């Protein structure tokens, strides 16, 4: 079909003209450097007193930087998809896209790819800030980069949520608000629900804890705590939710969680494709009432 993916080209071109991307990149990096710098400053002044170069306190800063960066990425991602379709509906360009040869799959996938590129650029731009707290070692650069790769499926999930929400809506404001609500919900509910229901569950453990696998925070949290030598943190969280912390689930929690989230992402994208395909579906908002 189309050789040069017009939507990707246009999105990236338009974004390169705006100030949003550079502003976001600067802001995120500023926050991360500030955390890294102030943290290291405190640690280093401690070290001067003791004369020992100990990487361990720095690892706490590394973890803080990582988690902050990750949460920021999750909060930034909706910008790139939550208004992508509802926005075109608002300006009236979406109808035009539908009349061209682009298929709904083309439209959704091209918009996803361009969003991934933009978010990917932001993630990569944060690499120096991420590595700053590692000047005394403790975590190898390779594993830090490996951790950064883990951001990608998580950002992808948030982008998919945004794409889905925006495919169902006609208003940018509404779909953006909905997307943020969904992201915050997805981060908090899988933790809160099992924690709150724990007292009512039987001894064998809380089944609702498996919901944690859908939490985008979990894989990164698990990976970073493992890296800084606190692998027990995830077990603590699981125990808090009432899951008996053993078995394959705890063992492969990162892999399972990423898989679950990718599956969720693709399911949402499929729904988005269905949403934007003109059709005779009577269940749609303006469909015909039951005869």
């Amino acid at each position, binding site marked *: *079909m*189309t*050789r*040069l993916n*017009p939507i990707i*080209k*246009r999105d990236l*071109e*338009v974004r390169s*003209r*705006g100030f949003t991307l550079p502003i976001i990149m600067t802001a995120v990096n500023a926050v991360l450097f500030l955390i890294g710098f102030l943290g290291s400053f405190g640690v280093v002044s401690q070290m001067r007193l003791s004369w020992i170069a100990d990487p361990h306190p720095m690892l706490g800063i590394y973890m803080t930087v990582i988690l902050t960066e990750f949460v920021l990425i999750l909060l930034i991602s909706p910008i790139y998809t939550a208004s992508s379709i509802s926005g075109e509906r608002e*300006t*009236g*360009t979406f*109808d*035009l*896209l*539908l*009349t*061209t*040869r*682009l298929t709904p799959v083309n439209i959704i996938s091209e918009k996803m790819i361009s969003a991934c590129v933009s978010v990917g650029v932001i993630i990569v731009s944060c690499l120096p800030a991420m590595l700053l707290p590692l000047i005394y070692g403790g975590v190898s650069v390779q594993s830090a980069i490996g951790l950064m790769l883990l951001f990608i499926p998580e950002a992808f999930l948030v982008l998919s949520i945004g794409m889905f929400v925006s495919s169902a809506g006609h208003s940018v404001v509404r779909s953006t608000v909905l997307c943020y609500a969904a992201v915050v919900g997805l981060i908090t509910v899988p933790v809160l629900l099992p924690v709150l229901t724990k007292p009512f569950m039987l001894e064998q453990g809380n089944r609702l804890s498996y919901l944690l696998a859908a939490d985008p925070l979990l894989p990164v949290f698990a990976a970073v705590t493992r890296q800084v030598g606190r692998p027990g943190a995830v077990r603590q969280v699981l125990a808090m939710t009432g899951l008996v912390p053993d078995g394959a689930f705890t063992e492969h929690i990162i892999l399972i969680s990423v898989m679950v989230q990718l599956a969720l992402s693709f399911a949402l994208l499929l729904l988005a494709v269905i949403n934007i*395909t*003109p*059709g*005779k579906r009577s269940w749609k908002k*303006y*469909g*015909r*009432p039951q005869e």
Partner: protein
Amino acid sequence: MLRVENVKKFYGHFCALDDLTMHISEGSLYGFVGPNGAGKTTAIRIMTGIIYPDEGTVTVAGMPGGYEHAESRSMIGYVPDAFGIYNNLKVSEYMEFFAACYGLDGMEARRRSENLLKYVELTDKADFYVESLSRGMKQKLALARALINDPPILIMDEPTSGLDPRTRYEFKQIVGELSDRGKTIVISSHILSDISELCTDIGIIDQGSIVMSGRLMDVMKIVTAENPIIISMARRTTQAIRFLKAEKRVRSMAIKGNDIMINFEGTAADEAQLLKRMVDEGLPVHGFSREKGSLESIFMQLTGHGEEHTVASYDASESYH
């Protein structure tokens, strides 16, 4: 070329299109007129395949219409009522973007874009940002964009609304020329006079169905036939009235001084016959005429309940500039 048959469309319980049937023949310039909310946009979106009717069918050049039929879909160029403008994109990029959406590659896309921009006289704006264009220019750009894959059918939703008289004139010039080149064109408006001099065919829609349609000339004939005959008498008006009262074909009468207005049922020959007999009777008739049909008046009559609205918007856009 484009057939809409018995189309129904519901928004919830509200029936936006009620058994709409339209036949648009090849090469015609079809004026699709109706007051605001009559269902024009809905009908047009159904023709383009963007939305589906709940009942009924659309046929494009003998092929089934609807979104899943890419073949018939790409035969239609669509100019929506909103221009469909992307911010932060230059005019030439806008055109090339849509060319690419039709699978046209670099050189070909550029060539077509340049030709079309020249055609709508926007060549000197090629490097301007789309959002900086004036309303009229945006409308012309939207037209150029709709022609990027050279579709045989062009459907425009209220393209002249909100344009100043000069741009409107230019725009109509272009549309007329496209029609001369053989494109089948549907152009909607809530202002009949705005497009009536342009069209070869007309369809008047009200509350979701066509209330009158046909070739413009035929419609004009029907409209004319509805009008009263005015008979002006030099003298002897009372005798003339008495004479006319005895005539079977005279349905009703109104008198204003020496003018008698009659609603006459019959052909042109019957009219001539009536005049002859009046003269034979020795009645001094010095004027006998049927008022030429005014499309505007019939439009107002047919869409009577929406009259205030139509009149209001008519005035508003007329006084623009």
